[in-house]
């Protein structure tokens, strides 16, 4: 039996002995290793499409500690497609304003206030265990409606072996070991991915020599719901930078950048954490320490996210620094990208080359995140004397001059990845807005009733604006739903026109199940649409 490595915040999948533990090995279409946010989201998406999926986790639920706390709009939209978006927003803390300080001085403040006309805010803060719980809750709902999802806690994969057309797993449980066969294995087992190690695959990148201390404190203080970030903070012993950010339940995330040569055990002692927090908040503020942790980080990724029958998603495939909230948010986009592709391949509706495009597209996303997060880290932790001189020059100038503010980098917050130039992209034959170009995720817009993204669901969609699209219900067994919109009747704020037509008057968009634009035209016949769909499913690469 494997010893637990951490305490559980929510018991989401308690261990229960199943018959399969004492029978001949059973074969599953998909086994997901890791019941964290990415594994659960992938399972929910697949299960809702009717593809049987089994999740194995070596614990019984979401681990303690807030960990990922900033969830971006695109993540909430994906969670909403899966049924869990509203619960997250209801619990989460919505924030828009960020303030940046250098020592005692405020350098500037920014407002993320998104444009009007989106169902979800730019960001919410929510502790990761809640995110996992809401996805797991939705899995229970889906199961009760017949979705073939199974979660097995305290099921530790101890060995894996790839065969020609399946993977053999050795699984340890409190009642002893058993074997499972999987046609496809999805490794969502975190940055230290045991599956990746068992396969001897490399995970290369850059190590940043710095330690960050997280202190989650519970207090009912009157600080505003804003992201406060200090370069060279003025409080005693607070390190090279500090962050204060509100989470639900009166919990505040405080981060201190401590440098490289530190004694972790010493810094994590309550009295030493408290000394720093007292200096920041003031002696008279009452608080409890909820959770503390010291982390270091690296920016790295696997070369390929697909290795034959094994797919890697989330931190197991790529890791970034936390500045920019690009870890969990990019992992959820992995799940969004992978689930529909795996579903079509398993149903025999698309060739398995479609799964290579999962790796292509999401590695592109990972590179973008690593680039942004490396740049933020270079600003936060200048690597030479001169880079520090420039960093401080930027901060000094930013106090009084607008031009220097865009150079201040305390993390570029996660925005969804656009799959520019990728092999699944079809024709872009519309002089439409750049933000909804082929490869981009659909931009939300208010409709006469509800929001546009609500109406897209999770299948291929033909979005026809101010035009009658050809009647096309499926291509080679892949279902297409049609959504007709008239900007005269269904577009009360003009957002659909702005975001999908621009200066043109009509359009046909072919949208993928993950709501990215596969192709768009001013006008298209059934044959053009069918070809684009075959391109989007790797049938015509």
């Amino acid at each position, binding site marked *: 039996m494997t010893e637990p490595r951490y305490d559980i915040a929510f018991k989401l999948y308690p261990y229960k002995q199943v018959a399969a533990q004492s029978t001949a090995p059973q074969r599953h279409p998909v086994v997901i290793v890791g019941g964290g946010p990415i594994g659960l989201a992938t399972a929910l998406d697949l299960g809702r499409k009717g593809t049987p999926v089994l999740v194995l986790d070596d614990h019984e639920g979401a681990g303690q500690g807030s960990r990922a706390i900033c969830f971006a709009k695109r993540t909430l939209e994906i969670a909403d497609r899966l049924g869990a978006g509203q619960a997250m927003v209801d619990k989460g803390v919505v924030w828009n304003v960020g303030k940046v300080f250098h020592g005692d001085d405020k350098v500037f403040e920014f407002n993320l206030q998104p444009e009007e006309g989106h169902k979800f805010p730019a960001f919410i803060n929510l502790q990761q265990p809640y995110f996992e719980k809401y996805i797991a809750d939705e899995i229970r709902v889906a199961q009760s409606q017949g979705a073939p999802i199974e979660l097995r806690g305290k099921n530790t994969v101890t060995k894996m072996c790839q065969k020609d057309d399946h993977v053999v797993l050795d699984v340890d449980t409190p009642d002893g070991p058993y074997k499972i066969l999987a046609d496809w294995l999805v490794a969502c087992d975190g940055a230290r991915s045991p599956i990746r190690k068992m396969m001897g695959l490399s995970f290369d990148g850059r190590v940043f020599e710095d330690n960050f201390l997280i202190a989650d404190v519970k207090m009912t203080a009157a600080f505003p719901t804003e992201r406060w970030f200090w370069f060279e903070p003025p409080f005693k012993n607070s390190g090279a930078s500090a962050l204060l950010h509100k989470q639900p339940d009166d919990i505040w995330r405080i981060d201190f950048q401590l440098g490289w040569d530190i004694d972790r055990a010493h810094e994590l002692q309550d009295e030493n954490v408290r000394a720093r927090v007292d200096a920041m908040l003031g002696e008279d503020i009452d608080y409890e320490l909820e959770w503390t942790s010291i982390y270091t980080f690296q920016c790295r990724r696997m070369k390929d996210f697909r290795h034959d029958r094994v797919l890697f998603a989330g931190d197991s495939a790529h890791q970034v620094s936390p500045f920019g909230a690009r870890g969990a948010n990019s992992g959820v986009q992995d799940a969004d990208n992978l689930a529909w592709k795996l579903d079509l391949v398993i149903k025999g509706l698309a060739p398995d080359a479609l799964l290579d495009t999962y790796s292509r597209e999401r590695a592109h996303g990972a590179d973008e995140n690593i680039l942004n997060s490396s740049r933020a880290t270079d600003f936060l932790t200048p690597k030479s004397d*001169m880079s520090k*001189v*420039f960093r401080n020059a930027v901060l*000094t*100038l930013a106090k009084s001059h607008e031009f*220097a503010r865009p150079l201040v980098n305390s993390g570029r917050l996660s925005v969804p990845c656009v799959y520019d130039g990728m092999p699944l992209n079809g024709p872009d034959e519309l002089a439409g807005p750049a933000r909804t170009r082929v490869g981009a995720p659909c931009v939300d817009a208010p409709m006469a009733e509800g929001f546009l993204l609500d109406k897209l669901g999770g299948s291929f969609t033909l979005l026809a604006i101010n035009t009658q699209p050809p009647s096309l219900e499926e291509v080679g067994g892949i279902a297409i739903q049609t959504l007709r919109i008239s900007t005269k009747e269904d577009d009360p704020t003009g957002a659909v026109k702005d975001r999908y037509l621009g200066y043109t008057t009509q359009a046909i968009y072919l949208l993928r199940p993950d709501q990215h634009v596969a192709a768009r035209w001013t006008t298209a016949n059934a044959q053009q649409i069918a070809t684009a769909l075959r391109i989007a499913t790797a049938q015509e690469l």
Partner: protein
Amino acid sequence: MSLNLDPNITDPDGFYDELLDAHQDLSKADSDALNARLILILANHIGDRETLRDALRVAKAP
């Protein structure tokens, strides 16, 4: 190359004087900081990335 490498400053001696004047009595650290601010201000004024890239190239290999 869009970078202007022809003489372009009126009263070059006067400008040079002002540049040195700005650094008068500054410590090495303060002078470095002043230079950094000056580079950022001028770079923003130029704005064009191609010109800035040319300038970096010429500065690195004069």
